[in-house]
């Protein structure tokens, strides 16, 4: 479970995140929805302790991210906005590197890797160097790398960005599977349909603030709009940055 309490982060005079609070529960998929530049990535970066909030608190499984960042990172699986793989290593070696950084023993590592390779359908690229991978192959490898330590909490920053329809569907199935396993899945997106199709709970962010936090149905009811896209436009108050 990930709890975020009143996060603030400014870069110079720009308030990127200005009082964000929400909770992502275990066994649920929580969507962080917002237009480009709303502060989604900055919020997530504070969650996985890459950045330090100016104020506010992040709790992951009741551990304070400010107090024990290493312990928090241990229970998090993160697909950051930056996907960078190691081009001169194979997909499998990329995954093994992160597994070893987590201090996982070889037997567990192999078992976990096999499970992920099957779930993500990436057997064919496992032994290939990642140089020249397609966007879809890169994301699969990056996700496998991020989840090899079997984390309870999973953060995915715009996971479907740049993926084709087939890869996107595959990834959605995979996220449903993670949810089914009782994990806490938090992902960000600016694509309405995606959030509507996947999420148990939607947190809408605009201009660094949470403007709505509810189930999809409740959001529709709250705004009186029949479809989520109209609801979204009403909530953030403009159509800016909505293009999928």
């Amino acid at each position, binding site marked *: 479970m990930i709890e975020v309490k009143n996060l603030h982060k400014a870069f110079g005079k720009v308030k990127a995140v200005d009082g964000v609070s929400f909770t992502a529960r275990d066994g649920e998929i929580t969507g962080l929805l917002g237009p480009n530049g709303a502060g989604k990535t900055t919020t997530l*970066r504070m969650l*996985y302790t*890459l*950045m*330090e909030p100016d104020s506010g608190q992040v709790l992951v499984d009741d551990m304070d991210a400010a107090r024990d960042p*290493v*312990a928090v*990172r*241990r229970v*998090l699986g*993160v*697909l*950051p*906005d*930056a*996907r*960078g*793989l*190691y*081009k*001169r*290593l194979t997909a499998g*070696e990329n995954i093994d*590197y*992160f597994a*070893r*950084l*987590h*201090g996982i023993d070889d037997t567990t590592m192999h078992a976990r890797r096999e499970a992920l390779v099957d779930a993500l359908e990436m057997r064919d690229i496992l032994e290939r160097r990642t140089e020249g991978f397609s966007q879809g192959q890169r994301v699969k490898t*990056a996700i496998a*790398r*991020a989840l090899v330590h079997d984390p309870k909490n999973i953060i995915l920053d715009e996971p479907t960005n740049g993926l084709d329809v087939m890869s996107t569907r595959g990834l959605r199935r995979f996220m449903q599977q993670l949810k089914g396993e009782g994990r806490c899945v938090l992902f960000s997106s600016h694509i309405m349909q995606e959030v509507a199709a996947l999420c148990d709970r939607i947190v809408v962010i605009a201009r660094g603030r949470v403007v709505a936090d509810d189930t999809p149905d409740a959001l529709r009811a709250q705004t009186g709009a029949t479809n989520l896209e109209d609801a979204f436009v009403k909530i953030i108050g403009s159509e800016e940055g909505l293009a999928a």
Partner: protein
Amino acid sequence: MNAILTVWWKEVKENLRDKRTVMSALIYAPLFGPIMFVVLMNVQINHELSKAEGPLKVPVVGAQYAPNLINALKQQGLDPQPAPHDPEAAVRDRDADVVLQIPSDYGKTWRAGEPAQVELIYDASQTGTSTPRERLEGMLKNYIREQGAMRLVARGLSPGIATPLVIGDRDQSTPQSRSGLVFGILPYFFVIAIFVGGMYLAIDLTAGERERQSLEPLFANPVARWRILAGKLGAIGAFSLASLVLCVIGFAVAGHFMPAEKLGMSFDLGAAFIGKVLLLELPLLVLFAVLQTLVAAFAKSYREAQTYLSLLMILPIVPSMLMSFMPVKPATWMYAVPLLGQQIGISELLRGRAIGMDDIGIALVCGFAATLLVGLVTAQIYRSERLAISA
């Protein structure tokens, strides 16, 4: 496996697969020095030897005025050449190193028993003219001494009267110490091998990794940043060390291809020498690794880091320059200054002098202290938020 070792091994493995890094760290950087050195030294030595031993070809103006003198010089190895039209121009244009000019009244003055005059025309600013000029001067002085002695004997006097003083040369240099002069450039090549050996790694592991956006996922792992830094520094150090070892071995092998003994020098890099060099360079190796990483961490891109590090490469030249422009008497405090200490120490070793373990100890302690200082700054930079964010 320990996280530091994991990072270290991954970086070493990944970079061994990069052709450019391997070429520069394990071939170009370590072997550039020895190869260039062998070629240059062979050209230089053969050039000097041919000038010092072969017949001395000198154009002579007015040879017909002094047949006896020319004959005496021929016996000493002179090979008189026809006179050029314009001796001054011939010397300026490097057609001749030196020209001997005998005036037309040479015979008259000689017979009168007055000092006759000959002229040596040369350009001292041209390289390579001093050996032939000194040889010709030596031949002439021999002739002067001989003829002077004969005149004294003819008058019933002992030749010793005209020689109130004799100089005895007692050169304290040894074949090894003479070679130390020539091989003074060696420490610089060692430093370059260390620097270039680790340079591409240092750029790749920080600036490159950030540019390729893999630093952010890496930092999301439950590993303290200093451990990641330590692993990366270890990988840089491993490549620098490999480069240095290859370079030292390269020079040891190169020594066999050099006709050093012909110049009265000896150039022997034994195992003891190699061991002491590696020990002395150890602090420099880690110091460069952290320094290069620090610079790479400040750079916004791979190219920028490359530019900065090329500039930083000028730094190791400074002690070598100082040493060649001013004669420096080695003092203990110099061992405390990184780079200078290595330069002095290796120069002393090349001259065949022993350097004490206390001097090496000072170099080690001070070098590692400097490394620690720069390392703390680098670790601080590594902790910053700015470092991880690629875009």
